[in-house]
């Protein structure tokens, strides 16, 4: 990183302190995700590309390292580099449709 000045005085924390601050938040989000996947099981039709992308990201949650968010965002990103001729929508879906 070229900027040599990280946030001054970032306090060092123990894992217990981080859990005290953020565990309940992470807990309810994980349960919401589980409920979403359960809801999909009960629904009919082919798998949506967004859900396929979400499933592809789940193993990254259990991988080592401290950049899981960036890894997931990279996974979901359009890998092409050239501008497209014309768009058929103004919206983005959240996951690059070509992701296998």
């Amino acid at each position: 990183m070229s900027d040599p000045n990280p946030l001054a005085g970032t306090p060092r924390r123990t894992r217990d302190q981080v859990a005290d601050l953020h565990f309940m938040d992470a807990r309810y989000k994980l349960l919401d995700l589980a409920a979403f996947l359960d809801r999909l099981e009960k629904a009919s039709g082919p798998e949506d590309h967004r859900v396929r992308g979400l499933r592809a990201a789940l193993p990254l949650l259990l991988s080592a390292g401290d950049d899981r968010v960036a890894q997931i965002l990279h996974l979901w990103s359009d890998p092409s580099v050239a501008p497209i001729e014309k768009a058929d929508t103004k919206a983005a879906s959240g996951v690059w449709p070509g992701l296998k």
Partner: protein
Amino acid sequence: MRYIEPHGHMVSRTTDDYQAMALAGCAAICEPAFWAGFDRKTADGFYDYFCQLTQHEPKRAAKYGLPHYCWLCINPKESEDMKLADDVLALIPEFMKAKTVLGIGEIGLNKNTRNEMRILEKHVELAVKHDQLILVHTPHLEDKRKGTRLIMDVLKAAGKVKPERVIIDHVEEHTIGEVLDQGFWAGITLYPESKATPVRAVDMLENFASQRVWLNSACDWGHSDPLAVPKAMQEMRRRGHSAAAIDSLVYGNPVRFLSQSPNFKDPQALR
């Protein structure tokens, strides 16, 4: 604690939001030109919008003691119509004379199309010609990484753009490093669902850097929170950051960047 909201679409918000932001410590608001949620059909529609941004909205904000500044452009979502975009670009120099205009923005890309790129290049030329600051919108979700890289290519290709006079907004964990590495400022937008949450934003600030970063709510007509910046400040307090560090981030950094425009006045100096 004081803070500056450097990116809020206040024409879409109620006066209750101005009141809440003022009570939360907001000292000034900056409003980039934006997509209205539908495509405007004529340049006259933009003329009225620019009048709203430069004349009406500052008066509305002043009722709550808040200085209001703005940025001008046609948003990339409306750049596919090249004729309309050219007509709107022709309007902008007249409005640059207003004392509350900070620069050209929020320009950038939406779906990374060739027409969007052409209009982005014209906006950059306009900014360089008139020595204006630039505020960049980066695309949403899966289009962000590609669009951010294309935008930085355009800015570098323009030749006369000084990176320290450009803020590239809506960065996330996969784009913030590249933006800062190339010398630009980075904006982290705090949204309830997309972009970054206050918790993730503070993680980014702790993991990356904070000297050329600002936080904003980008509150608009969609799912957004005009108090997102104070909520991020609260998260920093919860994690034990000092009042001075928080102030430096949410007040000092926007003042440092925005003061490169002669029109911006440090709110502290106005009191």
